[in-house]
């Protein structure tokens, strides 16, 4: 481990986040929020300063090749650093009583979780509200991917970082060069965000709310500028636009790229996208039937709220238009399971990812098939291609790690005096980067009832989920640090 390389790149990422504070700062100045502008200016100064201090002395090493290990260390430490500095505006703005709360909010933002500690969101100055949305937008496609697109010199080293930040079960590179891949991804992301802003404004949303919500939809984040989330707009159009863009955000971005290049059929040909969209349809139908008549009188409103909530949870966004805790148990269980499945690989969503779930099912079926035909040669196939055994076993490993850590963290949380349903759902919601859970952390509540140590635990869970477990957990393994 060459620490020079690690600090240089972590410094660079921090510097980047500092630069991005210029947007909320401008917003604060525009709305004449003197105090918020001062807070943002000071935060920006601190972040830029610390970033430069880290980067400055070791900058030469930033352009060199990195080892696999260094890549993982840089990404995890970088995300921690970004989370800490992202919390400074909340802390200086006296939004929360303690720094841990600010950190929770910031990490929840960057990891696109969307779990909040705020009870009165609308009381926040607009500059800070925009910052809260912007960090989700930055974190959604990935801070590393963004810096790869912008910084030319992160060539060979960049690749290790990319792999650590965007771990995909079956890696696909859109372009031969990592930098071009990152640029393409960000362009698609930017394009969708802009389109969503326009469509939301057509639904009579003001520019500020439209931008903030677009910033949190595309990354499947879930922060809203309103206390009662998207529910407060009372608009079927807004709900519809949100559903469409959440779905878009939940699909692999390389498919979007190909579709925009004029090949719309790829969406239907891709087995994962088919699985994902099929699952969405089936679950919406099931939940609609379940809540119709019991909670909602008309079929249309049952469909509206069911579809919004299913898509919001399955894509791991976490917006709320209905208090789903009042829904029948069946619907609640469906939503909880959605938290585990998550969106597609290569999307901005979290969870275990559809691709892995699909392959796990195929793998399980193959084992059954082998019991019937012990001598059969039956490789697991995906879209007509054989999936290598190494990929399958790594997916099994990932699944085990995910479920295992879920169990351990829930037990830890309950040992702090949190009740059963809250413990389980809070951990599931943070590891899957969803946002709201059930009971104490349900859609109409927030995470402020979690004890201090529990907040630290959930911060850890959010990072675990965003970087897909291994990149984070490996730093806790002594072997990783052995020379």
């Amino acid at each position: 481990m060459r620490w020079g390389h690690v600090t240089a790149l972590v410094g660079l990422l921090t510097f980047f986040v500092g630069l991005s504070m210029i947007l909320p700062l401008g917003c604060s100045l525009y709305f004449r929020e003197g105090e918020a502008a001062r807070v943002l200016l000071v935060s920006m100064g601190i972040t830029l300063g610390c970033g430069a201090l880290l980067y400055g002395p070791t900058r030469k090493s930033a352009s060199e090749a990195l080892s696999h290990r260094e890549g993982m260390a840089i990404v995890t430490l970088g995300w921690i650093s970004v989370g800490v500095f992202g919390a400074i505006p909340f802390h200086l703005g006296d939004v929360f009583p303690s720094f841990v709360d600010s950190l929770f909010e910031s990490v929840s933002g960057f990891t696109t979780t969307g779990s909040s500690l705020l009870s009165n969101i609308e009381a926040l100055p607009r500059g800070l509200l925009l910052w809260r949305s912007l960090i989700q937008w930055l974190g959604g496609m990935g801070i590393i991917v963004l810096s790869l697109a912008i910084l030319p010199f992160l060539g060979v080293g960049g690749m290790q970082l990319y792999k650590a930040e965007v771990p995909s079960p079956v890696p696909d590179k859109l372009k031969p060069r990592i930098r071009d891949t990152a640029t393409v991804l960000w362009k698609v992301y930017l394009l969708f965000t802009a389109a969503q802003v326009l469509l939301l404004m057509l639904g009579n949303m003001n520019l500020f709310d439209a931008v903030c919500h677009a910033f949190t939809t595309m990354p499947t984040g879930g922060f809203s500028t309103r206390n009662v989330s998207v529910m407060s707009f009372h608009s079927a159009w807004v709900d519809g636009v949100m559903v469409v863009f959440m779905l878009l955000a939940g699909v692999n971005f390389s498919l979007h790229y190909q579709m925009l290049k004029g090949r719309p059929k790829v969406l239907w040909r891709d087995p994962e996208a088919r699985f994902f969209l099929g699952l969405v349809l089936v679950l919406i139908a099931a939940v609609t039937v379940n809540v119709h008549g019991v909670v909602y009188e008309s079929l249309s409103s049952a469909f509206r709220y069911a579809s919004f909530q299913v898509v919001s949870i399955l894509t791991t966004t976490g917006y709320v238009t209905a208090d789903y805790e009042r829904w029948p148990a069946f619907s609640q269980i469906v939503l909880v399971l959605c938290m585990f499945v998550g969106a597609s690989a290569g999307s901005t969503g979290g969870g275990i990812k559809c691709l892995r779930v699909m392959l796990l099912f195929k793998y399980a079926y193959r084992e059954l098939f082998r019991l019937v035909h012990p001598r059969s040669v039956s490789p697991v196939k995906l879209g007509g291609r054989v999936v290598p055994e190494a990929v399958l076993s790594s997916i099994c490993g990932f699944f085990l790690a995910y479920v295992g850590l879920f169990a351990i963290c829930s037990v830890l949380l309950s040992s702090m005096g949190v009740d059963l349903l809250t413990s389980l759902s809070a951990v599931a919601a943070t590891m899957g980067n969803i946002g709201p859970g059930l009971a104490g952390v349900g859609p109409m509540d927030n995470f402020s009832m979690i004890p201090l140590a529990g907040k630290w635990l959930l911060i850890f869970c959010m990072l675990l989920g965003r970087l897909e477990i291994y990149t984070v957990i490996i730093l806790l393994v002594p072997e990783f640090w052995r020379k």
Partner: protein
Amino acid sequence: MASDFIAEPPREYFVKIIIVGAGQVGFNVASRLATENKEVVVVDRDAAALKLVSEQLDVQTVEGSGSSPAVLQEAGVQAADILLAVTDSDETNLVSCLFADMLSPATKKLVRLRNDDYTNFENNLKERPPHIDTIINPELELVRTVQRLLDVPGAVDVAEFADGRLKLIGVRLGPGSPLAGKHLWELPRKTGGYGFLIAAIVREEELIIPTGRDVLKAGDLVYFVTEQNRVFEALSLFDIKAETVRRALVVGGGRIGFRLAKALEEKNIYTKIIEKDPRRANELAENLNRVIVLQGDGSDQSLLSEENVQDMDVVITVTSDEETNILISLLARRMGVGKAITLINRFAYLPLVAAIGIEHVISPRLSAVNTILQHVRRGNVLTSVSLKGEQAEAMEAVAMETSDVVGKPLKNIDFPKGALVMAIFRGQEVIIPSGDSVIHPMDRIVILSTQKAISKVEKALAVKLEFF
């Protein structure tokens, strides 16, 4: 609108290269090109080899046989500027080019062919399908390299420009060398001003493009440029005496050994060749007239002393087993041979062998890599040669009227760091430049550049060419 935004920006230096074969040659070419910001796609049948490539290099990989049209299409052959077919199989390479020609006639095709049967049809292959642009025969290149090494005594590395009129020679500075401890600015006094320029120094595996303030140290590998007819004068500076090679021993009678023996025979050098396999030895004896063919094991000390190896001017070890080559060379050196040239294929060994006293190394794969890179270079770059350790390349190019480097004294040119003009050819004249030299339009210039500076040099040379 959306599709415009997503579409490729027109990039001036956009070069997409498909490499078929992720073996050592493919890997190394890919690695060099990827660091120069070219778009590289590597195709191979072996998933393990591809994994190695994708883990270490910023390139795209496609699994599948390079001779399959479907795979070539998947790799994006239609958009590719260059296709390099460098698998170990000549047949795969040829079929790959054939289909690339059908799918995308505009793509330039470079192919590695080793079998004489095929290379004899070079013109046919160029004019008719598959319309191969360049055929690279690494063995032929290798024989040329050996000949150059033999022509310059004491040289570790020799490259030629302008049909051999200019030589770039690498020599090791011994502890007793008269130049050790001297500043470079002191040198013109010793040379009396004739064309001689130290272009690069390799010290502890690191390549330095020197300035006048740099000091030469014993143990350095010094690269200098000089004209063909001044080579021996220049070598005398390093206390190296002119000796011509009269007796040579080749160990290993494979294809390379045979070609070498034949070439040496033609130059009237008294040559012996040792081959282990009796049948092959017979074949050699049939095809070689004045060469003495010996059947036996090259690592057998008694055979070597029986054949008076100590009287040989040079021993060239070219068996198929590189470890054996290294051992035989070491043995020959210990028995008193002045010069041992060793064939080594595995790139990982190259930095190590100097440490155990093997200076002269040839590598068919390295030759192949160099030749391929020469052809991939953009703009008006004519030839390129890479130096030991591959940290730098020498490139020969025509200075266009519009180029940034024309019309000013060299010292006023904002040349990329790590690059140096080694020579200027004007008509028949060869100029080894100083800071006051001026490049005229249509001059041919030779530039030495480190890996990092290559893309900048390419720009400086050709940036304005794009408007023609």
